[in-house]
């Protein structure tokens, strides 16, 4: 159930083999939804769900899919799952689904999905594939949350919409940095996170 290999499939993506920081996959959506924490969490959960289930489905089908058309089969499975997620969001959390707008749809072209399906689910049994999906999804969500935490805290002084920077700071001249909310700062934040991550994991550094 939880052999060494399965544990690796689950824990490696959290730091050593993180999909965003190390494999540089799925950046598109990782940056666009991180202006505040709430959409980031919803996006993370959606990606975990789609990734885990598409991994399982493709892993079940892996022996019957002809190699020539596997990309299309994978795309269709992922697209169907994304539509389910999108409809659930529209039904139960309309505000957030408005905020995420097209980015839920763009989970389909999230490179993490195609990457994991190609590299893992096509060669492994359903249970490790499921763990791999959850692990990669969590690794992705973690980065999303770190970026969103700093952007929301520094950009609007709130966390999950609650004011956390006390009023006396503002009275003494502290100002929210509006630049953090704007798109370019997401890139710079991720750049800095990669910097920190690579200085702690020396084997990842490039020459």
């Amino acid at each position: 159930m939880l052999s060494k290999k399965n544990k690796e499939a689950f824990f490696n993506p959290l730091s050593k083999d993180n999909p965003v920081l190390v494999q540089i996959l799925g950046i598109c959506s990782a940056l666009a939804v991180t202006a505040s924490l709430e959409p980031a969490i919803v996006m993370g959960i959606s990606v975990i769900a789609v990734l885990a289930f598409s991994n399982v489905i493709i892993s079940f089908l892996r022996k019957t899919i002809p190699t020539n058309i596997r990309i299309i089969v994978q795309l269709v499975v992922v697209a169907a799952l994304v539509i389910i997620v999108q409809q659930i969001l529209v039904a139960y959390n309309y505000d957030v689904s408005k905020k995420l707008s097209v980015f839920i749809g763009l989970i389909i072209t999230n490179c993490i999905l195609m990457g994991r399906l190609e590299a893992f689910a096509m060669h492994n049994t359903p249970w490790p594939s499921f763990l791999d999906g959850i692990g990669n999804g969590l690794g992705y969500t973690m980065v999303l949350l770190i970026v969103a935490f700093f952007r929301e805290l520094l950009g609007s002084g709130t966390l999950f919409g609650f004011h956390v920077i006390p009023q006396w700071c503002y009275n003494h001249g502290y100002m929210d940095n509006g630049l953090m909310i704007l798109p370019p700062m997401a890139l710079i934040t991720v750049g800095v996170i990669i910097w920190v991550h690579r200085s702690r994991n020396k084997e990842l550094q490039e020459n």
Partner: protein
Amino acid sequence: MEELNLFIKSIFIDNMIFAYFLGMCSFLAVSKNVKTAFGLGLAVTFMLVVTLPINYLLNKYVLQEGALTWLNSATGIDFSSVDLSFLALILFIAVIASATQLVEMAVEKFSPSLYASLGIFLPLIAVNCAILGASLFMQQRDFGSAGTAMIYGAGSGIGWWLAIVGIAAIREKLAYSDIPKPLRGVGIAFIITGLMGIAFMSFLGIRLG
């Protein structure tokens, strides 16, 4: 004038990379030298110009609420309340994937020199978020005609092209600079893209006509 405005806006202000981060994966992976970056930019622009009008027509005559009313007189059934827009994702991605395949075959047959320069990039494009993203934005924005959608596609594509060639040129020069080790490669590419994004923000508020 309206179209020109949309064109300029989609190149500079609503730039796919700097404003929406679409197509970042290939943007970072293929921007190590200017020549390949140029090829990929060309391929992306080309695919946007081809797929956006198709998806526009699909959205207008099949997917939208009431889009199927043109079937009414032929079949005698009232289609005006049918709303298929939840199928948009799956149809758009199917159009993009098959268009990629068709364009690849057509280019290979009619223009071997172009095929040689685009070559490996064409198949990659099916999973480039910039293409699907542009189709989804197009669906949200309600353009007036397929021509307008095509102009939007061309503008977004050229904006993406500009961005990737720009970053590739900077990264080529960076080979000679002394960057802290952990920041080398991807890290610095992210930060430069961010700085370029801030520069592009100076185009905000441009309005023509």
